[in-house]
């Protein structure tokens, strides 16, 4: 007994030394995950790392598997889930792949690059009370016709009164309102002449059909956006909505910000810079509840003047070459606006404004853009990305950064075991992503092997006895026996 204890003591001591905490074990896998590290900010991006965290986010038991992190080294896939929160409560957002920056070990994971795939899936869709403020370009250029003879304003009208767009603006289960504004020169004007919040689909359709039109004048795009996020929100009829509803500003234009006949593209750089600073100020205004701060979506009708020019929403400093490229000194009126639309400005405004930018050329595309801006919000999201198994051969850090709506960032350190894995995930035919295989799948490997080994153990004796039964166990016929028979 004493000898046994002496033998066991160092063993237990060593095992005791190994009982450390290097993260939570992820159920059904051989990976561990550390608690998420959250960047300071108003919005928390709560990455779920434990079942309790999932339950704390109101995720149902049947969705726990989707909520917990999953690492499948065989297919090179990683899955995480998160919930944006403000003050500990879910902050409902319409997050898509474009709104999220993903970093795997500090490297950007970009969908479509080097075979990488990324998908963001919203769960638990919810409608929240919203106030949509539509700012429609009413300048003279909206009267221009395309090859088929359809005026641009008519395309917008048709898109706005399409069934799907109306349903997006006025879902049945929640109260929403739409403010319809038109802008050209000076202060934007309410469509119909009187500022009101439209609350019924029929009234909205009627207002669009009857009152949404064009008037001559230049395009005060930047000033209209500035007005929408400042003075308009302070109007009594609007302000009364902001206690419950989240304001979403949707700006549609078909060209450039153009405030005078002599405006050249480069003149827009300081104006845009000033607007972006104002947007940033409003969106970071701590005196406003975060749910009352406006999000800005932009819709461009037409083709961009250049696909090479790109906005940098991380910054609000704008140089002429950033938005104009080689056309800095070119007049907008009658020259540049004929070439296309100012996509960079729209992207920049939407980027800093916490929304998304859409460039469309037809009615159907416009409809989709309006629907995108009015998309339903989700309570929590799954992020899936595929970077190849080789990148999962050691512990890695995954960082999720929300680049739209609000800034939020969170990281987790995932440590797959360096020695063994659970059964590889299975991907049903046609599915894009692998899902965890049931643990019972291990029996499919172990049982046949054990059966084979046991069978082989008996095979030797069986084979010998069979061989002897067939050949050697019978009496050997000797010649003497044969001779006796002959006699």
């Amino acid at each position, binding site marked *: 007994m004493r000898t046994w204890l002496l*033998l*066991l003591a*160092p*063993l237990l001591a*060593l*095992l005791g*030394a*190994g*009982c*450390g*905490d*290097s993260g939570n*074990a992820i*159920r059904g*896998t*051989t990976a*561990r995950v550390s608690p998420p590290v959250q960047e300071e900010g108003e919005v928390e991006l709560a990455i779920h790392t434990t079942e309790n965290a999932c339950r704390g986010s109101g995720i149902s038991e049947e969705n726990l598997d989707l909520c917990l992190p999953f690492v499948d*080294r*065989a297919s*090179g896939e990683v899955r995480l889930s998160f919930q944006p929160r403000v003050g500990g409560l879910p902050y409902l957002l319409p997050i898509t792949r474009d709104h999220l920056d993903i970093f795997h070990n500090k490297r950007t994971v970009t969908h479509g690059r080097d075979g990488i795939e990324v998908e963001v899936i919203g769960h638990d869709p919810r409608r929240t009370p919203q106030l949509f403020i539509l700012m429609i370009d009413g300048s003279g250029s909206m009267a221009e016709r395309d090859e088929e003879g359809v005026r641009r304003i008519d395309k917008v009208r048709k898109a706005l009164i399409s069934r799907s767009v109306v349903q997006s603006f006025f879902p049945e289960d929640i109260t929403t309102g739409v403010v319809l504004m038109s802008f050209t020169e000076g202060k934007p004007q309410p469509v119909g002449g009187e500022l009101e919040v439209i609350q019924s689909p029929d009234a909205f359709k009627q207002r669009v059909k009857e009152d949404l039109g064009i008037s001559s004048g230049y395009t005060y795009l930047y000033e209209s956006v500035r007005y929408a996020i400042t003075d308009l929100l302070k109007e009594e009829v609007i302000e009364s909505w902001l206690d419950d509803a989240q304001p979403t500003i949707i700006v549609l234009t078909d060209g450039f910000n153009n405030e005078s006949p002599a405006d050249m593209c480069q003149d827009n750089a300081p104006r845009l810079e000033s607007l972006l600073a104002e947007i940033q100020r409003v969106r970071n205004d701590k005196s406003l509840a975060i749910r009352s701060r406006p999000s800005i979506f932009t819709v461009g009708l037409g083709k961009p003047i250049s696909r090479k020019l790109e906005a940098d929403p991380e910054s609000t400093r704008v140089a002429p070459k950033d938005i104009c490229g080689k056309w800095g000194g070119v007049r907008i009126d009658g020259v540049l606006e004929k070439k296309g639309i100012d996509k960079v400005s729209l992207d920049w405004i939407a980027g800093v404004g916490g929304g998304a930018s859409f460039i469309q050329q037809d009615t159907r595309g416009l409809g989709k853009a309006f629907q995108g801006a009015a998309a339903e919000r989700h309570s929590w999201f799954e992020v899936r990305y595929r970077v190849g*198994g*080789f990148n999962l*051969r*050691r*512990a890695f850090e995954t960082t999720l950064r929300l680049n739209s709506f609000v800034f939020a960032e969170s990281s987790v350190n995932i*440590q*797959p*075991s*360096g*020695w*063994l*894995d*659970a*059964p*590889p995930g299975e991907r049903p035919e046609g599915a894009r992503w692998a899902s965890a295989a049931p*643990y019972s799948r*291990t029996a499919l*490997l*172990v049982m046949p*092997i*054990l059966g084979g*080994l*046991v069978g*082989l*153990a008996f*095979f*030797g*004796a069986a*084979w*010998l*006895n069979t061989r002897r039964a067939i050949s*050697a166990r019978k*009496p*050997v*016929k*000797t*010649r*003497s*026996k*044969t001779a006796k028979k002959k006699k």
Partner: protein
Amino acid sequence: MNIFLIPYSWIRHIHVALVTTSAALLAWWAVLSWFVLLGPAWSAEWDGPVLLSAVSGATAGASLLSEGSLRRAPPLKLFGKMLAAAALAVLLTIGGTWLWGVMLGDHPDGGDPTLVSLRYELGAFMFAGFGCAIGPLVARKGRGWLNHLLSGFATAMAAAAVWHICSYTQIIRGNDLFLASALMSLTWGAVFGLLTWGIPDSLYAGWVRILSPTRFARRIPIDAQDGTPKERFIGRWVRGLDLWLPHQEGAQELHISVAVDDKQRYAARGLSLYPTRVLRFLEKIDLRYDPRRPAPLKTRIHSGDRIEIGDGESQCVVEFLMLPKEER
């Protein structure tokens, strides 16, 4: 294990390996089940030591269990030895892999316990192989120490190679540590079982058995009870012979003898001038006595060899067989 189920054929060389392979596979399954279903109670640094020590301990224990059950050891002694060997293997494996971790220190890659790399885990495998060999070696009181040590290291290297090939290359699937770790455990058990301890011939005894119709299937053991050299005589002498054969079938008074030496090697000697042949696959040996030679002709015989006595119309056949010693 039961010696009666293990014939004296090629299967006896792999039988222990079948048991150790099963044990290693079950150990891997147990660790994986604990990990996946219950969650590990240890940190990432101990994943390797826990897996290797489980496989190594199970293999060492299974090797001792096989030997003990074949030798009909008393249950208490059998399980005591088995547990002691397993515990020692586990202890040495955990200690060795921990030492390897200390040796790697703060190396940027080697110090990362989650890095899948044979380069930084080979030492852990070797320590585990050493531990796996030492456990049974101590239980066997140092017999075959060189064989045990070399087998332990060979086991570790083979298992490490399989683990690396399956996890790193695309031969099976690549980046799949599920199959890699399972096959590593299989290899561990198989190689250790094959190399370390095989079923010894001492558990079997030689027999001579009549194959011709008259007195068919009568048999006599060759070995003495105490394991000393022994010679058994076959012929038609009425008294004093070990196996009697009829004169009508060609047997002479003292026709042949089958002997076993102190190293359990068997040989047949031809003692008669009449035809005597040993037959085996692609071989026929004439053992007829030659008066010009000072001693009778003899040849080594193996299980399954036949001896033809007599010729023409008077002939009989006996066979030499190895059967479990307990058969007596």
